[in-house]
């Protein structure tokens, strides 16, 4: 089965998380979360396996970060920061993030793979995959429109669906 093959190859990227999901319940078969610098490698794996790209999109998790219970030491980050290395670790889970979701699908059998990655909301940058899948070009442009996510190496990140003078990103929360 192609899912096992993808799983094996993705495991070599040491993904943040990988989950086999039930198609009937979720609509996809494999859910892989990689670090932002691994998206090109992940796309290359999907490309070699013969998958086509269905969509690229984003999710702004600002509200999730707000809803999460504050860490006990969180108030201290407003004041002076102790030089200890532990502070950065503790602040990380509540720092708002954005997610970029890549949907891959294959025509020859039933296997839909979701590759996702999280990037910091205040500096949303990750490499483009349009050199692997030229079809990603438009999807990334759209994601840039809606979320302001910067795809480094993308040749033309100008407003696409939005007006050409648009200076806002409508799908950002809050």
């Amino acid at each position, binding site marked *: 089965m192609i899912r096992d093959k993808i799983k094996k190859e993705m495991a070599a990227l040491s993904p943040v998380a990988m989950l086999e999901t039930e198609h009937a319940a979720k*609509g996809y078969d494999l859910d892989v979360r990689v670090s932002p610098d691994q998206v090109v490698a992940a796309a290359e794996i999907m490309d070699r396996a013969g998958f086509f790209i269905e969509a690229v999109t984003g999710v702004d998790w600002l*509200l999730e970060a707000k809803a999460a219970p504050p860490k006990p030491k969180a108030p201290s980050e407003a004041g002076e920061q102790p030089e200890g290395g532990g502070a950065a670790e503790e602040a990380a889970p509540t720092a708002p993030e954005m997610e970029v979701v890549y949907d891959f699908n294959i*025509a020859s059998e039933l296997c*839909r793979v979701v590759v996702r990655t999280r990037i910091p909301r205040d500096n949303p940058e990750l490499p483009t995959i349009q050199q692997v899948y030229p*079809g990603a070009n*438009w999807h990334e442009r759209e994601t840039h429109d809606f979320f302001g996510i910067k795809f480094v190496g993308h040749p033309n990140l100008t407003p696409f669906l939005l007006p050409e003078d648009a200076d806002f990103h409508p799908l950002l929360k809050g």
Partner: protein
Amino acid sequence: MRQLIESQSDETFILNLGPQHPSTHGVLRVKLQLDGEYIVEAEPVLGYCHRMHEKMGENRTFAQFMPNCGRMDYLSALAYNHGYVCAVEKAAGIEVPERAEWLRVITVELNRISSHLLWFGAYLLDLGGFTPLLYAFDDRERLLDILDTVTGSRLTYCYFRFGGVYNDIDENFVPAVREFVARMRTRLPMYHKLVTKNIILMKRLEGIGPVSAEMVRKYGATGPVARGSGVSYDVRKNEPYSVYPEVDFDVPVYSEGDSMARYKVRMDEIEQSLRIIEQGLNRLPEGPVMAPKAPKILKPPKGDFYQAVEAARGSFGVRLVSDGTNTPYRLKLRSPSYSNLSLFGEAAQGMLIADAIALLGSLDLVIPEIDR
């Protein structure tokens, strides 16, 4: 004068096709860089019909978003209804009564035929033949009347509900659809005689606008565009939903990859849809058309869900991210024409502008669906 022409032969110029052009079927603009009549570069410019449906989805309840589904692809609105309700039902775990499932399939297939008929007429109009449009609209009008009585609207349908459909069919529906199926079967051979075997059409379409299977994969094209390039991918078969697994139908595939192949795929699909409708009518069970326990206020559990359906133009996908409240946290709408059009820039390179029109039309674009 001759000297002047020769000195300019290396130069190119920019021509805007649209945003108001009869062959763009909506407000699509294509920036063409031309060398004489040959296309050096074609760049579609989108956004003229952009309404930000995805944002609208985030600030209204699940049910309130239903009417939006009929306003993206206005020619196959029921498929969009279907994709959205299936996604929400998957997330919320709502069972749909069998009668409702069959009614959904029958109406979606009727809608698919009406969409293909409109494409058929409009495409031939693009290519310079006026008469086929009148034949196609005659047939389509009968379909719209049938769908009007059951859904309550002619175009922007909002017929499906979470857990079923909005109302049951009346006693005239089944005989009317049977009559339509019988009539369409006599009309299709006439279409082929009038149009498909026409030498002018063959010369305009055969070998024009080749799209390879590899290109289909790299750009994520689906629907008749993929099936015209030898890629046998149909969501109804590959990722079955609703009652499609119980229906016997074929997926027409042509491997030539030219505009003629895409034309033939759609014409064959009309016949396959008729087969599906017939089986649906024969097997339509009695019973309720709404799940009795469908909740009034929907709060699907947290999580993210994906549902794809086969719309008339390809795979329409809904990615629903729920945070457990009565409004979607994120609603991604993956529209097929968006990906199908994205390959136009590469495919149109080096083509004559008149042939590019034939290619553009064979992609069967609905711009409000691309722009969303």
